[in-house]
């Protein structure tokens, strides 16, 4: 299953599922990353981590490790 971590810069993907538990998962959802939402990868920081995405109209920074938990 592809995850958000695999997405390329400029690509827009749709979230299929969120893995992870409790607070971390809740935090991601609270920020708008839910099933069915479109996410566009905007940039990747120097050295590859974190990544910046656009979701629900605003910019969000995530670690690659967290992006890994999001199936797209």
């Amino acid at each position, binding site marked *: 299953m592809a995850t958000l971590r695999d997405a390329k810069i400029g690509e827009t993907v749709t979230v299929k599922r969120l893995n992870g*538990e409790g607070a971390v998962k*809740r935090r991601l959802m*609270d920020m*708008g990353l839910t*099933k069915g939402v479109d996410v566009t990868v905007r*940039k990747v920081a*120097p050295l*590859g981590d974190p990544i910046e995405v656009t979701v629900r109209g605003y910019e969000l920074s995530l670690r690659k490790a967290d992006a890994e938990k999001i199936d797209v």
Partner: protein
Amino acid sequence: MEIKIALAGNPNCGKTTLFNLLTGSNQFVGNWPGVTVEKKEGRLKSDKNVIITDLPGIYSLSPYTPEEVVARNYLIDERPDAILNIIDGTNLERNLYLTTQLAELGIPMICAVNMIDVVRKNGDTINTEQLSKRLGCAVCEISALKGTGIKETADLAVKTAQSGEKMIPQHSFCGCVEHALAHIEEAFLHDLPAEQQRWYAVKIFERDGKVLEKLNIPEDTLSHIENDIADCEKEMDDDAESIITNERYIYIAELIKECFKKKKKGGLTISDKIDRIITNRFLALPIFAVVMIIVYYISWTSVGTLLTDWTNDGLFGDGWHLFGNGSAQYEQAQDNFAAENIFTDEVKATVEQAVDADVIGAAEILDAIDGGAFADFDEAYGSYGEELAACGYDISGIVDPAVETMNDTIDPADYGVWVPGIPVLVETGLDNINCVEWLKRLIVDGIIGGVGAVLGFVPQMLVLFIFLAFLEACGYMARVAFVMDRIFRRFGLSGKSFIPMLIGSGCGVPGVMASRTIENERDRRMTIMTTTFIPCGAKMPIIALIAAALFHGAWWLAPSAYFIGVAAIIVSGIMLKKTKMFAGDPAPFVMELPAYHLPTFGNVMRSMWERGSSFIKKAGTIILLSSIFIWAGSSFGWTDGVFGFSTEMELANSILGKIGSAICWIFAPLGFGEPTAAVATIMGLVAKEEVVGVFGVLDFVAMTSLAGYSFLVFNLLCAPCFAAIGAIRREMNSAKWTWFAIGYQCCFAYAVSLMIYQFGLLFTGNVNVLGLIFALAVFAFIVYMLARPYRENVKLSKKKTLKV
């Protein structure tokens, strides 16, 4: 009857700005009991009967973070008369997420769409009427920054509170969820007031830990409810919390479709364009380095030094020419006189001999003589003359009387308008009223000497503060956190640890407190412990002093101090992460990047002034008291075995001197085993600026550049001032951890200084064998601590499965 209105909304939505507008200065800021979350309350300016509570910025009412818990506890326990939900118009979708949750509480509510000016500027439109109909409550448009719509909103909020009209949420969830909710309400909640049942039902459905605890539902009811929930989860193929969250967003998506029209945006915003360069993979770090170097070069070496020279040598020194008129001629006259009467062959020969004998500072004096400028000679001689004499190369016999003659014959006032320095003015003034000698010395040598030394650095500080304020306000620093995250994660810290460091570069106290944003307990403790490694504002005078006295004001000294600070944090991070106490997974990092904006001149100035005035205030208070203390300690002592007071007390005989001598051996391996240096370091606990203050009251010690640098590093890394220690104590919430933190910092500082000095000695050719052995041992230990394997698998490689 008092009316209570609560302000709720996302972080960054402009709540605080609105709160300030509504309450003016009628505010009270404290803490919510039991937690370190800020509580703000105030009275409405236009109606003192109305109390407004500014709740912490939250994204949702989940039970996971202290802010959220505090906010929701307030809302369900205190039941304010109305909620004023502030929505960031430029971020509608995500802000409405909270709105749906607030609506379920059943408390009278109105919404205010903030930043409406930005929305309009972007060309977007929000149909607030339609939004209001769909949400089921009034929706106002405001711009807290511009001040529009405030009064109407405030009035409407009060009216809504008075009407007592309970908020009825207009959104519903899908079939099986509603079914489960209905069951839950029936089974357990029917005793609660009607409007509250919905919120509790939803929370129970989500298996909200805190609510379940609070309600104390009997076992069999719980399992009954659990069945319903489990059924729903199976049907939707998701866990309860996610179901609810998804449903909310589905509803919001509909709202957005109906009420929000985005202007077709083609290209990138300006912020994006800037970010493409600033956070570019390869350019970001070099750009950051360059920015920092520029900031420090300008504030320290060029503009800053100019100003600081004036304050140190002029205002708090002998004096200065008004507008600089006449300074050049005056100096020329001095140089001419010196060439004939001070820089004699005899003097030169003696100094050259001292240089050959490797006396500390002799080279500086020789350079000054060769250079021909009396001012340079004066400085070098002031610092190192005594040392020369002590080693048998006394030139004071010729120099001192010559200087006296020069001062008698060449009067600066002849060359321009001469303003005597403050010490001179005060001394003259005191002489005029026949002040007793000791009091005069207390004031001139003690108070003015100490405070003046510190205040002398104010100009440099102000310039620096302006830069830092600008960088913070425009949004650049958020990008830096983003960029630093990867590096930090390698070393066991999250990018969020960078923010406290950044703030710590101003003052360590808020830096330590900023660690609250880190949820992971262990990361938090580690951040608290290492934040004070970064040179704070108070440590700047120390850097400046060493730079000026021993390194000719080299521009690279300050950046090197920061570099060492960051390196110390990273090295500590790695070492500690590998110990049992701190091992664990790195914390998740999710952060919002606000758009760049040009900060207003007023904002930057205000910020600079805030910091500057606190610096000055500190000087006028703590430093003043400490300077008196130091002066007293150095004036009371034993002359010829008799304890007494003397303004001419030799340092070695005074109380302070005795104490200093008793402990200075500790610092000998680090290169600064002199009583004055030891005392200065200890006084650094009171306030870091006091280190400079001590040297202002007592005289600066002759040190080699290497020793000076070692001294600098030790003072930078060792335990911070009492105020910061207090902050550490508060944030750690444990005496044991606080002592550990302090102990760690001092040991680390000692180790680093030891290495710098001993390895440095190697390079200059003076090898201290014993010292070198110790330094090597320390080095080896640190390398081991860095290289050994982690205790737990740090990388998250497995996908964790859902635990229900």
